[in-house]
């Protein structure tokens, strides 16, 4: 972030907002990791901790909203400062949604059996989770480093997340096909896969907003 506004407190306010996003981002990244661990290891004890840290993320969102409002009122930001305000508002919203989805996923394991889930299915879900985790890390790096290259990479990587989601869903359906008794479990696991794909969409949006923050434009969709 470039410094030296004539008004020093303006710089400080922008710094605080920037740092809040970085912290909220790393909290969300950890939450996503904890949630994937809970799912792939069927670690039901960790769920309550996950629920708690999701609450923290929600608080960040509320506090960032408030700070941006104050910034708009006090500073009437323009150009790069205006883009920071607007994109930060959107990024914090997406981070909050990612937190919600990760928390929701962790809670979905509560009714599941601890062991007899097929390892191929858990593996494909783990691979999907890893792709999403890689994506959020890159997305947060793109923000921290103000890197359009990384932001574009995140947008490109979304395709892979979508592919892995399809594979994961297919594994869950195979599991369901083996025994209709698995219906309830399978439904939960379908939600988990779908939620991971959605988290990927939010992460992609974050990267698009980082790109906008830096360049004043949105990345071209090259489908």
């Amino acid at each position, binding site marked *: 972030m*470039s410094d030296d*506004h*004539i008004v020093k407190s303006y710089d400080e306010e922008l710094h605080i907002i920037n740092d809040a996003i970085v912290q909220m981002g790393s909290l969300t990244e950890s939450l996503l990791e904890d949630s994937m661990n809970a799912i792939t290891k069927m670690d039901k004890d960790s769920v309550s901790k996950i629920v708690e840290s999701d609450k923290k993320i929600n608080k960040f969102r509320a506090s960032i909203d408030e700070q941006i409002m104050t910034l708009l009122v006090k500073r009437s*930001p*323009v*150009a790069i400062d*205006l*883009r920071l305000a607007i994109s930060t508002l959107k990024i914090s919203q997406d981070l909050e949604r990612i937190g919600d989805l990760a928390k929701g996923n962790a809670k979905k394991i509560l009714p599941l059996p601890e062991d007899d889930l097929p390892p191929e299915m858990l593996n494909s879900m783990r691979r999907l989770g890893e792709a999403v985790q890689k994506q959020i890390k890159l997305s947060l790096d793109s923000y921290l480093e103000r890197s359009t290259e990384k932001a574009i990479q995140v947008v490109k990587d979304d395709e892979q997340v979508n592919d892995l989601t399809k594979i994961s869903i297919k594994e869950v359906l195979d599991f369901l096909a083996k025994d209709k008794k698995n219906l309830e479990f399978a439904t939960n696991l379908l939600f988990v896969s779908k939620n991971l794909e959605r988290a990927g969409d939010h992460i992609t949006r974050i990267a698009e907003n980082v790109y906008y923050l830096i360049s004043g434009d949105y990345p071209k969709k090259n489908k």
Partner: protein
Amino acid sequence: MELNMNREAKVISKNVDVFYGNKQALFDINLEIFKNEVTALIGPSGCGKSTFLRCINRMNDVIDICKISGEIEIDGFNIYKQGVDVVRLREKVGMVFQKPNPFPKSIYDNIAYGPNIHGIAQNKQELDEIVENSLKKAALWNEVKDRLNEPGTGLSGGQQQRLCIARAISINPEIILMDEPCSALDPIATAKIEELIDSLKSSYTIVIVTHSMAQAARVSQRTGFFHLGKLIEMDETDKIFKNPNNKMTQDYITGRFG
């Protein structure tokens, strides 16, 4: 954003250099000002905004040490060509200054003065109409219609500035230049002038120098940023305030240097 699709350049500045004695105040200014739009000029004090504004109605001619080269075209005609009637030019290009400067005369006479000396009105009745219409266009009529014979200097600052705008309008100009017209006014009076500027642009081409970024963003369609006598960037106002091309423009409008 409302954008006039078939824009027509009303004023074109070509390679304009201005010197005060040995000191160069403007360097190779090239720009276009579009008809029926508001163009804002911004930049730090002393960067040459007022100097450029005064080039458009040849007000710099009255400053002895001031030398201008290059061309200013209005409607395709170079106003610095030999034999140009400067009085006629200043009829066409009116000016409003930072500090409201009504004549020490009645409200009526403030407006009637220009049409009289320019021979615009044929008789008293026509003059009355011009006064009324000018004050109406300047959104001042309702406030002063019952006291036209009172001195213009007795009005509030904001009213005085609208009186000066009415005075500028009274001689049917095509272009109105405004040099920081609101810098001496409170927010309400400023809002009234801004509202007025907005309503005037359908009939006139307006160039406004302002120190308020927010005002430039509110009233203008295009904005030019000057720095140390050079035009650094000129573009759609929207673009300038969301995503300027030039780093120096960005640093200035975001308050990163003064």
